[in-house]
């Protein structure tokens, strides 16, 4: 009977041709490090990170815009902790706060409701970053704003969809043998949403949860699918991921947002990969002009290889700047600037074992 110990034994002793599996989601990158997963599988199975770090792929200009707004009298910007210390082309939100910008950290967008009602003369701007997992929180906020007729809250959006990015990735990084799909994004999208992608890329995919067991099972499933030459989407997180996903949020997403082209730091412009508030909801949108983001992998080449990391073409240690000229305190690119980026996570958790132990 199959158990985790046998799965680990098979993965550790894997003798097939080298495999490259992409774990799309930043939370998976972090979990894989935290749980010591790489130490449980053969070095012939390489796990590379993907573009699923919303902070890493948000253009620097977005942060500049947020800081500029926070410096305007009468405006306060609210941000998740993830974004707080990431510098744009200029200072981070945290540094801006130190110089007098009105910035506050939040855990949930809902926290803005009480603030907005208590201080109706101020405008509160939520730095609305994220993938599909965070849409429920923003839709919930928009519903409350409408119902309570709150007029002094705006969303400064940098909302993205993962499937268009994966489709783009598949054509630009064709040597990925399998995808570990983001478990909580999949809660929203549903298993069926990935079927045409798997067929288009002719690559197996496994929707995974975030425990040691979930991640190992997903890796095992992908190895088996490759060996059996299958290109299916397997749902290995059925406790929360259904075939059709969270249809309530899908309806609200349709109601409040429209798709459009958006720039991904390191990847460039990807069609229909962004979500923007529909025209009838502009009263909740923070209008701000910033330069059309067009940073691509090529733009990073001279100073760093973040573009290559986001595409899964290399792991952070393969970047010549990693650890030498590029560290969390002297970052060269977004993957190290954000401590949740692949390079930041690798730096903190993964050292080559030193001799003597």
């Amino acid at each position, binding site marked *: 009977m199959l158990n985790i110990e046998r799965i680990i034994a098979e993965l550790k002793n894997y003798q097939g041709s080298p495999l490259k599996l992409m774990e799309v989601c930043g939370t998976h990158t972090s979990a894989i*490090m935290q*749980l010591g997963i790489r130490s*449980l599988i053969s070095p012939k199975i390489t796990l590379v990170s993907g573009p699923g770090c919303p902070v890493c792929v948000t253009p620097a200009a977005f942060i500049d815009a947020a800081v500029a707004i926070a410096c305007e009298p009468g405006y306060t910007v609210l941000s998740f902790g993830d974004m707080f*210390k990431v510098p744009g082309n200029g200072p981070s939100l945290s540094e801006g706060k130190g110089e007098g910008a009105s910035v506050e*950290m939040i855990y949930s967008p809902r926290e803005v409701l009480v603030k907005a009602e208590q201080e109706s003369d101020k405008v509160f701007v939520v730095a609305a970053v994220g993938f599909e997992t965070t849409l429920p929180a923003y839709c919930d906020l928009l519903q409350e704003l409408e119902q309570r007729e709150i007029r002094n809250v705006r969303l400064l959006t940098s909302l993205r969809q993962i499937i268009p990015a994966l489709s783009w990735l598949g054509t630009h990084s064709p040597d990925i043998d399998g995808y570990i799909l983001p478990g909580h994004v999949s809660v929203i999208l549903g298993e069926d949403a990935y079927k045409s992608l798997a067929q288009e890329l002719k690559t197996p995919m496994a929707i995974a949860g975030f425990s040691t067991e979930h991640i190992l099972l997903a890796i095992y499933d992908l190895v088996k699918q490759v060996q059996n030459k299958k290109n299916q989407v397997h749902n290995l997180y059925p406790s929360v991921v259904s075939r059709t996903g969270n249809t309530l949020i899908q309806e609200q997403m349709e109601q409040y947002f429209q798709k459009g082209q958006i720039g991904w730091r390191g990847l460039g412009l990807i069609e229909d990969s962004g979500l923007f508030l529909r025209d009838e909801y502009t009263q909740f949108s923070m209008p701000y002009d910033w330069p059309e983001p067009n940073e691509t992998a090529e733009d990073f080449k001279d100073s760093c290889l973040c573009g290559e990391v986001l595409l899964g073409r290399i792991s952070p240690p393969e970047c010549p700047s990693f650890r030498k000229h590029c560290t969390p305190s002297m970052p060269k690119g977004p993957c190290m600037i954000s401590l949740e980026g692949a390079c930041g996570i690798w*730096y903190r958790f*993964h*050292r080559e074992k*030193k001799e003597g132990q």
Partner: protein
Amino acid sequence: MNRITMAHGSGGAVTQELIRTVFQKHLANKYLNKMDDAAVLTGSSYPLVMTTDSFVVTPLFFPGGDIGKLAVFGTVNDLWMMGGQPLYLTAAFILEEGLSMKTLEEAVSSLGQAARDVGIQVVAGDTKVVEGKGGLYINTTGLGQLCYSQVIGSAQAKPGDSVIVSGPLGNHHASILSSRLGIKNYIQSDCAYLGDMVKGLLEAGLEVHVLRDVTRGGLATVLNEIAKSSRVNIQVSEELIPVDPEVLGFCEILGLDPLYMANEGKFVCIVPEKDTAKALSMIKQHAHGAGAVVLGKVFNSLQGHQVTCQTKYGGEKIIDILYGEGLPRIC
């Protein structure tokens, strides 16, 4: 007056009344009462150990503690971490204009009580008032004497030693953040005096190599500092790391890692194998050490002094020092 004003810092009659009615009231002793510019103290025949710390916590009062208590325990605990028996304390207060008198008095009263509880006197003090929004900051400096025979320090860990932590991690940090983010729970700061536990170990003649309190940066940072200073590798086991379920839940909500969270009443104790069982049992006899565990071992290292952690099913990961601030995250 209900609130601190700039007049309280002028040095004149208003200042003197503040000192008399708040500071002397709660901190009185033969040294402080003299109101001299400096305290004349009895010397010691032992080497002296000295430390200083500043306390800037907000909110000032939190479940399980307050800034006054922290200001005493934090500094005397640091003395004990070198094996130093605390002798004297100083306390300097920076008051922001607008600070409520009631709040100030409660903090000073708590500081005075904590000092009496641990048997130490505040022999010198200072008060300044600055412009601001009603904040309070306290600096305490502690003087102690090294009257025990053990040689204790971060560089003293030896291969074969056991790594003990005195109890569950992250409570203080979680308690403070809970107040700030409005998450309701019963998590209390672990703000505590560690002297009784440490004194017991030293007086029993145990060969204590390292004592470090686990404050900012968490256990991970402290163990890395020890590994580097002692030029060793330290290996811990994830399943043995003690964390209260409520704190774990709090960490899961905010994406935090207990290994990097601050504590105010926990210490790491590194002792040779032969003294491990006794050390553990002595610490566990105390209320603040009831949750103590042996969670790892010290190993030889030829280069690159690291902390590694055994994970589930025989996996392994490196634990590095804290980078950044360990902020809550959704990604």
